[in-house]
């Protein structure tokens, strides 16, 4: 029995290494395919740095969304939250003249409030999180539209420190470190996995499940607030949309988060999210370099990501997947 467990211990070490190897191999293969297809205008070291910087934006949100996803909940209001938080941050920074304090404070507080609303509505209404957040997304979109007054909100050029190196990198690294810390060095991380594993037992262990579910949405909201800072700083402006048009912004952070869940068994969810988002960006920019029509890009990207997640997710035989 001891030897088995020693073997298990050894396996655990190699699992993490294996996880990294798979992720770096995926990044390399993605790069290689497009480098072969379009060698001149894709994949130089400068280009790769640019793709990586772009991927930091979604990664910052995805590492927060991971807490919600692992608990077995979902959020369809990601795009609407980013638009609303960006517009509030931009308004406070520019129109109200609060500068970086307005940008950072506005985005973070807006994100936190959105997280509280998502969590409280989900708990109080006792209906699936997907439905709650879809309904709330419409409200967030409308709110953003009212605040923006139908006008595109532009962040002044002197407030775009987080849209370029090293500001974006520093903010993203601090964000990743915070997510890693919360997940591994606080009770929140333990309870996140406990609730995701068996909510009933977690409740019987004295864990205030509802409180921690709301907290997961709040953490997620704050991290989407950080993503909003990076988004508006990088893109310089934000337009409020309606009719669920914000949903298109859900895709990239959600896919990155799926990488985190898929690589949870390798013990490296945060790292997987970061590298997963990087790979997604490589694929996107690869298609742009190829000049492929958007519809084709979407179809191939969708399939490519499904295949990658399928191949990298270690589902045991007989394990039920929902």
């Amino acid at each position, binding site marked *: 029995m001891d030897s088995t*467990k020693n073997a298990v211990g050894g396996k655990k070490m190699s699992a993490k290494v294996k996880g990294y190897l798979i992720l770096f191999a995926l990044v390399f293969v993605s790069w290689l395919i497009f480098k072969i297809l379009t060698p001149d205008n894709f994949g130089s070291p400068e280009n790769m740095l640019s793709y990586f910087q772009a991927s930091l934006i979604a990664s910052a949100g995805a590492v927060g969304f991971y807490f919600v996803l692992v608990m077995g909940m979902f959020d369809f209001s990601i795009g609407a939250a980013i638009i609303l938080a960006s517009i509030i941050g931009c308004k406070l920074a520019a129109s109200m003249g609060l500068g970086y304090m307005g940008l950072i404070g506005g985005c973070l507080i807006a994100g936190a409030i959105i997280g509280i609303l998502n969590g409280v509505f989900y708990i109080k209404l006792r209906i699936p999180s997907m439905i709650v957040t879809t309904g709330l997304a419409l409200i967030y979109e409308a709110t953003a539209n009212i605040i923006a007054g139908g006008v595109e909100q532009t962040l002044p050029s002197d407030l775009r420190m987080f849209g370029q190196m090293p500001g974006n990198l520093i903010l993203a690294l601090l964000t990743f470190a915070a997510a890693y810390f919360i997940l591994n060095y*606080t009770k929140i991380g333990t309870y996140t996995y*406990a609730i995701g594993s068996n909510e009933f037992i977690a409740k019987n262990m004295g864990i205030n499940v509802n409180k921690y579910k709301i907290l997961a949405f709040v953490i997620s909201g704050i991290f989407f607030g950080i993503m909003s800072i990076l988004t508006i700083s990088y893109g310089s402006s934000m337009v409020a949309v309606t009719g669920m048009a914000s949903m298109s912004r859900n895709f990239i952070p959600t896919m990155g988060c799926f990488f985190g869940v898929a690589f949870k068994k390798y013990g490296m969810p945060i790292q997987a999210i970061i590298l997963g988002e990087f790979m997604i960006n490589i694929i996107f920019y690869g298609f742009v370099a190829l000049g492929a029509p958007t519809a084709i890009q979407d179809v191939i990207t969708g399939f490519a990501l499904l295949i990658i997640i399928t191949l990298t997710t270690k589902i045991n035989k007989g394990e039920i997947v929902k």
Partner: protein
Amino acid sequence: MSEIRLQVQNLCKSFGITKAVQNVSFNINKGEVHALIGENGSGKSTLTNMLTGIYTIGSGKFILDGKEVHPKNQVEANLEGISIIVQELGTLSGLTVAENIFLGHEDQFVKHGIKNREAINRKANELLQQYGFKHIKAEHQIDEYNFEDRKLVEIVKATYFHPKIVVIDETTTALSQEGREELYKHMDRIRKEGNTVIFISHDLPEILDKSDTITIMRDGVYIDTVKSADVTEDDLKRLMVGREVTGDYYRPDYGEKVSDEVVLSVRNVSVPNVLEDVSFDLHKGEILGFGGLSESGMHEIGKAIFGASYDRTGTVTLADGTEINDIPTAIKHSIAYTSKDRDNESIIMNQSIGDNITLPSLDDLAGKCKLLSDKKLSDFANKFAAQMSVKMQNIDQFVSDLSGGNKQKVVLARWIGKDSDILVLDSPTRGIDIKVKQDIYQLMDTMRKHNKSIIMISEELMELIGMCDRIIIMKDGKLNGELPRSRDLDENLLISKMV
């Protein structure tokens, strides 16, 4: 005179119109193993679930060492000095061993909101060493360990803080002999420390052997408290059921010739790391038993026959030449299977009793145009629920509301309703009370006489000896001997081939 540890006073609990516990009062002493027995649905688990904070107290009181306690959850119960080891898996996937042991009690390792992972792992490893579970590592994910080891982790979790009362709720049925011995050792230690074990089990010889005092409950009502030394197994049966348990407990016949007609042939079946080159035949009207230690591979036999094993090689063939490689083919060809892991593999918890019973028979019950009649489905479910004496409000009640034994009855009712010709029953009487056990044995005997063939997989050696025409013993994934039905068979002979 022994000192009283826990006074149960006028305790009541209802679920809807069902009165699960009715005005129960009795005392439990310090330094004793106090067994709580009764048929399924007698209220034992409801009572201990109230004591451990899993259910809220309906009315009445628990007085622990002179002080009233009413914990709202297990952590509060732990703080009062009460803990529980549950029947099914009580550890959480996704967490480490250490995180599971201290779940809900992490604050001792948290300073300024930061969890000291090294300290929590160090403390957990110390405990695991003390308990002699050196092969379990605190920092490893709990998912890396099997059911048995995870139960050992639960023992540590429930007892490391020297609680005044440890509730052990039908845990032994889930353990192999080795695991049981480990648990008994710790029960004895708790008793010697002057603390108390409340021990729930349906295994009456085990109850008589391991407990000092026994309280009997029936239909949610307190019946009696007796000293183990003063009663026999038959006395306990009478107290539990409310009348003499008459007639033959197991099938009475010996020397009957089993038909030569083979209905199912298993050849060279292997499942990686579980089964190795297993071959045998099942005859018409035969009860073929499989025994062994929990990890001997015997439980996989059932899955392999039912087409539920992954990576199986070899063949499972019916008399007409049909090969069984998947579950739909097995069901279509009249094979039924009940899993040992009832809650996860046999029962759909959040569906009604009716839905659970009718599920595999929907095709048979469908009328013209494949439409289903509510009345027909209800009649069918009611008939077989009644045949199995399921204690329920009606067939629309959710299975999740039922006691463990009643859930098992629903599983059996499903396959009896399907009228299958070959039944693979893995631990069919696990967690089932004495009266229903007897009913199941009689049902199996009747089925056998009606030329149904049964494979009975069980860790209860006496029921294998009492019910089977042949017993195959498994060891390390291989067949390790076959014993024909005989009055001379005893447990020791089987055990000698198991270990």
